[in-house]
């Protein structure tokens, strides 16, 4: 296997690169073409700078505010999980990390059931004070967006910062205390400076996710809160102004790449082993009173933040509170399974031509194809990257670029290139899974690559010396070792595909909705039934993703992280 590394590596690169060139760089070029070659055509004549500057300004503002708020919650939470041992720690950590894997539409639906006009709070107030309309207009507001972003991204801060915090040698803090530093001085002069790399890296990642947030903003923000992503969608799908949509995509890509480069820079560990915790665990039971108060307070906060929206979604999907569309008279308030039963029916008044169960079938099919494509391409790519070939240095960034394109940008690019026979979705259903595979690919590579690099070459050499041919080496040595990481990455790709909304919203047509697209359309329609069906589907999606998350935790090796 090592005889002609360059040739072998090139062969490994061949298929992934061809795939990327066709399905990523071609659409990307199309976006640039639309923006720059049709500069003076009709699209630009109607163009006003404020069409770009307003969404850009708002996107940066909300991303900044979201990041700061996420840090406010995430930093103490990271400390909690890095240093304290308490009953229920594992369960609390699990529910704190769950949001990361939840689809945006599910999160949006969950907050809708809490603070929306048909949500628990408004319905309860209406029942209590006998009101005819929802009294609180919480949904289409900046705080709703910020809250959902905090819900979403606190898990990133917890994952990154708490893992580097728990690896931080607690004796450094003890040494500072012994040298006369108060607890606060110890934090600001020792702990915080040592956490800066991971803190910056996590914050930039959170900023990036907030910056490219699409589903949450679309569903919780309303028309007056248009971020770049939402504006790309609006310009392309509602106003058919492709040049402006393209320009916004180019800006999105540029800023994302900039932040990613910055993030890679700060992410390099600075102090080597010097700051590492020599002991297995730095966890201790809260002993002093302020520690107990802190642990209790954080536990309650995290449960409120993470469990309440999820429970609200699940419970609301089983309850009738208000009238159906066009229904008159008294509404029977109470438990119901109707929303789930209705998923299998196709009513004449339905906004789809097919029963909702079809959306579930579509999504499962797409996800299956996604993991097939992402699995094969991801494994090939990871093997290519693991080789010691000189040109890898140039090929790797080329490969990680798709991470910088938001799903909406990807969707726009696909729309520009493939929106004609034979590619149009009605004839070629592979377009959505291909987009999903592009989104999942970097995650798959990042999960498998360290595992491949971790296989000692001596194992392969030993099996060769015992008479195994290259294929046998691959099947008997590499595969069993890689199996866990491969499974983890495939489960993750599966949940990404199931929940993907940005690209799907561009590519799916009324005949072939995916679950998230169906949820979005249902929840935008009036009436209890549409709302209930959206919640039922969200709940099912939530359960599948929750199971996926549990599966990932079960099969991943300790210390392996998804990013």
């Amino acid at each position: 296997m090592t005889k002609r590394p360059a040739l072998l590596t090139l062969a490994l690169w061949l298929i992934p690169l061809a795939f990327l060139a066709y399905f990523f760089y071609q659409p990307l070029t199309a976006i640039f073409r639309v923006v720059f070659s049709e500069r003076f055509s009709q699209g630009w004549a109607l163009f006003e700078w404020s069409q770009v500057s307003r969404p850009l300004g708002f996107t940066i503002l909300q991303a900044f505010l979201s990041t700061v708020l996420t840090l406010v919650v995430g930093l103490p939470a990271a400390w909690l999980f890095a240093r304290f041992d308490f009953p229920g720690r594992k369960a609390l950590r699990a529910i704190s990390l769950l949001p990361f894997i939840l689809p945006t539409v599910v999160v949006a639906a969950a907050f809708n059931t809490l603070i929306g006009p048909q949500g628990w709070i408004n319905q309860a107030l209406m029942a209590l004070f006998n009101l005819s309309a929802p009294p609180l207009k919480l949904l289409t507001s900046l705080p709703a967006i910020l809250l959902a972003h905090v819900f979403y991204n606190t898990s990133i801060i917890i994952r990154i910062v708490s893992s580097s915090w728990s690896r931080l040698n607690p004796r450094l803090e003890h040494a500072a205390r012994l040298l006369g530093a108060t607890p606060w001085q110890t934090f600001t002069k020792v702990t915080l400076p040592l956490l800066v790399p991971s803190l910056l890296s996590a914050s930039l990642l959170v900023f990036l996710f907030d910056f490219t947030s699409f589903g949450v903003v679309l569903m919780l923000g309303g028309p007056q809160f248009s971020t770049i992503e939402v504006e790309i969608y609006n310009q392309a799908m509602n106003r058919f102004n492709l040049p402006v949509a393209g320009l916004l995509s180019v800006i999105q890509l540029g800023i994302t790449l900039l932040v990613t480069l910055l993030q890679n820079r700060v992410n390099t560990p600075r102090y080597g082993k010097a700051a590492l915790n020599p002991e297995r665990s730095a966890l201790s039971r809260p002993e002093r009173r302020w520690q107990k108060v802190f642990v209790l307070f954080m536990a309650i906060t995290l449960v409120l933040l993470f469990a309440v929206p999820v429970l609200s979604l699940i419970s609301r999907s089983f309850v009738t509170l208000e009238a159906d569309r066009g229904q008159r008279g008294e509404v029977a308030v109470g438990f119901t399974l109707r929303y789930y039963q209705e998923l299998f029916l196709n009513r004449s008044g339905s906004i789809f031509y097919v029963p909702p169960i079809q959306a579930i079938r579509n999504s499962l099919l797409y996800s299956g194809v996604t993991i097939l494509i992402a699995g094969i391409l991801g494994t090939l790519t990871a093997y290519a990257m693991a080789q010691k070939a000189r040109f890898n240095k140039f090929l790797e960034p080329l490969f990680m670029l798709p991470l910088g394109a938001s799903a909406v940008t990807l969707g726009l690019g696909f729309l520009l290139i493939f929106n004609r026979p034979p590619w149009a979705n009605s004839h070629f259903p592979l377009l959505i899974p291909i987009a999903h595979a592009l989104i999942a690919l970097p995650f798959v590579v990042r999960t498998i690559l360290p595992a491949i690099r971790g296989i000692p070459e001596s194992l392969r050499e030993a099996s060769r010396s015992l008479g195994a041919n290259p294929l046998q080496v691959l099947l008997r040595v590499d595969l069993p070792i890689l199996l866990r990481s491969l499974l983890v990455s495939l489960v993750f790709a599966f949940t990404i595909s199931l929940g993907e909304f940005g690209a799907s919203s561009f590519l799916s047509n009324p005949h072939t909705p995916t679950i998230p697209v169906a949820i979005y359309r249902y929840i935008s329609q009036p009436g209890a039934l549409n709302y209930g069906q959206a919640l039922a589907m969200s709940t099912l999606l939530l359960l599948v993703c929750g199971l996926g998350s549990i599966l990932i935790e079960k099969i991943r090796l300790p210390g392996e992280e998804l990013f």
Partner: protein
Amino acid sequence: MLEVQNLIKQYENKPLLKGVSFSVQKGELVCLLGSSGSGKSTILRIIAGLEEPESGVVLWQGRDLRDVPTHKRGFGLMFQDYALFPHKTVTQNIAFGLEMQGMRADEISRRVQAGLESIRMQSFADRPITELSGGEQQRVALARALAPSPNLLMLDEPLGALDHTLRTQLIQELRAILHQSQIPVVYVTHDREEAFGLADRLVILHDGIILQQGSPQELFEQPSTTWVAEFLGLGNLIQGVVTQTDPLTIKTEFTELKTNSQFTQFNEGQEVQVLLRPEDALIGAPMASEENHFACLVRDSLFMGEYFQLELLCSHTTLLARSPLPIETGSELTVSWHAEKIRVFTKE
């Protein structure tokens, strides 16, 4: 000055310290010696205020330190892994404690300079910690702990991470620096060479209690139990039975050993252990007055530099003995131990 009274502490629901008491006088260097897991480091952490004992008190000049937080105790602790701040330079590390005292900048730089001189590392002042070798880090950690002139200095296996040659060299340096500073010191180690080389007083910790304390010489000559004798690596420990109490005579597998008659706490027929130190062995034909001599086969002879270490087979028992002269392997010889050099312990 420092008094530790009856410390009791559990670790993961198992008793770790079962009532530990000792004190440290002004300018004294006390060595806490014990195997790993004996709770030595925990004692330091309790004195430092980093952990709380279940019961027991730590007194400083008669004052109970229970409610005094770590940063107000004015104690220095040097950690086993040094715990140097990796984001600070050598100078910044040493200055940290002085800054916490709110000292003026010129005074800080003067004292840091003095500290660097005392460890002979002036040229390293602006190096990042991550570029230092183990021995250099050890010296910086010592300078950092000493810089704020702590009331008491604690060292937790400070030479543990270093290789043997460096250790022997640093023990000398450490001794000089510590004695010069006149600060009372509690020094924790599992290495008896280190302990004997440094301590004014040794405290032997085993299984959560203090087995014995005293000067190195006292412990060497009068170990109180077989565990202490074995832990200090003092020599051959042999099973025996008391046959006579005055003078105390022990029957072993290979001979009958007579000792001084001072030992009165034994009864006839009692099972005991006998300590025969290799360095007390007398090799060759016995003088008329000598007792306790017996014939052995030389199984192995090892050149140790200043002496030869002999492995003797006496009946079925293997004994170690020292000889100033080389002796051929396979030869037979007579070996004897003076009655007053023999120590007897009750069997544990």
